[in-house]
């Protein structure tokens, strides 16, 4: 991330946020922790050492204990939104493929074959289809997601954006940035959008 933008974000945090109740990190901790991690991790498979150092967003969320001030959050979200690459035209792919992607927890781990199709790991955290009993509760239930929202282009963009970079909508969200991190391709995200929005998808039946 560009230095000026980084400074801008920290300024926003410093100016607007009161000290959180339970502070885990000081600014000065980062250098120490990063150095330790660089020494005590080794690269394996596709997991290289460039994954160690937190980016500006992660640093901001770490410092704010994942509860940035509304102003700081807005700034972070706007910056994250600018990273989203929206495809032109229709954003709905094939929900049947989207279901497979939602079920798969593979991708980016050091034991995953580089180049092999990854998944979104959606069911790890979310309920989606009513027929799938094995779902996690780390994220909200997405039952009937499309039924409640329709399939307008606006909704497609919303769903696409959420999957591509969840932090654009909730600065310190627990949800990974699946498009931004390179976990899912453009087509895969379109398929997930279809899984969420298509009236024929089990999520909406």
């Amino acid at each position, binding site marked *: 991330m560009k230095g000026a933008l980084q400074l801008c974000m920290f300024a926003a945090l410093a100016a607007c946020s009161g000290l959180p109740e339970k502070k*885990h990190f000081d600014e000065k901790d980062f250098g120490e922790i990063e150095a330790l991690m660089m020494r*005590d991790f080794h690269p394996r498979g596709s997991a290289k050492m460039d994954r160690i*150092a937190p980016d500006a967003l992660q640093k901001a969320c770490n410092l704010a204990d994942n509860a940035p001030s509304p102003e700081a959050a807005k700034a972070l979200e706007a910056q994250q939104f600018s990273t989203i690459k929206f495809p032109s035209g229709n954003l709905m792919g094939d929900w049947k493929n989207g279901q497979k992607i939602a079920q798969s927890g593979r991708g980016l781990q050091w034991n995953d074959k580089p180049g092999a199709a990854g998944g979104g790991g959606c069911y790890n955290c979310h309920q989606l289809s009513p027929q799938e009993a094995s779902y996690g509760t780390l994220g909200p239930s997405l039952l009937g997601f499309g039924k409640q929202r329709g399939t307008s282009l606006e909704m497609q963009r919303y769903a696409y954006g959420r999957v591509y970079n969840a932090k654009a909508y909730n600065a310190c969200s627990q949800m990974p940035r699946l498009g931004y991190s390179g976990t899912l391709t453009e087509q895969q995200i379109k398929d997930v959008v279809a899984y969420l929005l298509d009236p024929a998808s089990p999520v909406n039946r």
Partner: protein
Amino acid sequence: MKRLAVVLAAAFFSLPAPAQDAKKEIEKYQRMINDSSPAELFELEGESLWKKPQGPRNVSLERCDLGMGPGVLKGAYAHLPRYFQDTDRVMDLETRLLHCMMSLQGRSREEATRRVFGNEDKPSEMELLSAYIAGESRGVPMQPGTKHPKEIAAYELGRKLFFFRTGPWDFSCASCHGEEGKRIRMQDLPVLSEPASARPVVATWPAYRVSNSQFKTMQWRINDCYRQMRMPEPNFASELTNAVNLFLTTTGQGEPYRGPGTKR
């Protein structure tokens, strides 16, 4: 994959059973598997390994000092991780075993760590020894080192690492283990930064995993968490893994150790 877990999963897919019933069946299964377990076989084999002369010096590990004196095993696991004067660092069980393999048996680090995690056909030495030594702490309250300055520093470091978000998926340990009542798929997630949730966890690791017939240790568990967090691989017995382990054990201290656990 295998057996009972596969049969249970098949039952869920053939009838649209609500997740609540699924949870009840899983809890029932967990009660069943904790009643006698193949974990005992690992303890027995671990005992033989403890007594087996190995390495260039052709000696066994029986004079290894796990914190309560050379060869003293009763309660030793319950007092780990802790600071050791001879190495001037905080060490968990596996880190200390590695030290004894090198210093007593004369083995090289490279050789002794060539295969720290095993598989269903061949457990690793660390897994067998961990099972045996942990078993010798049954009933002893878990009390890791908390007073030495290096123990305090390691605890603080472990706490920071627990909440440190980084990597391509922005995960920290707290991303999954930070909120009450959450689960990943059907696996309940204990809040490991809270004593009440951490205590039963600390009292039942290391553990035998029924679903893949393998015995798993804490160094493995920390390693595998980082893998699933999309991070590179932590170094075995490193300061980082020991700090995380000490933080977890200290948070969950006080509960009488139940012996090597049996899990899904």
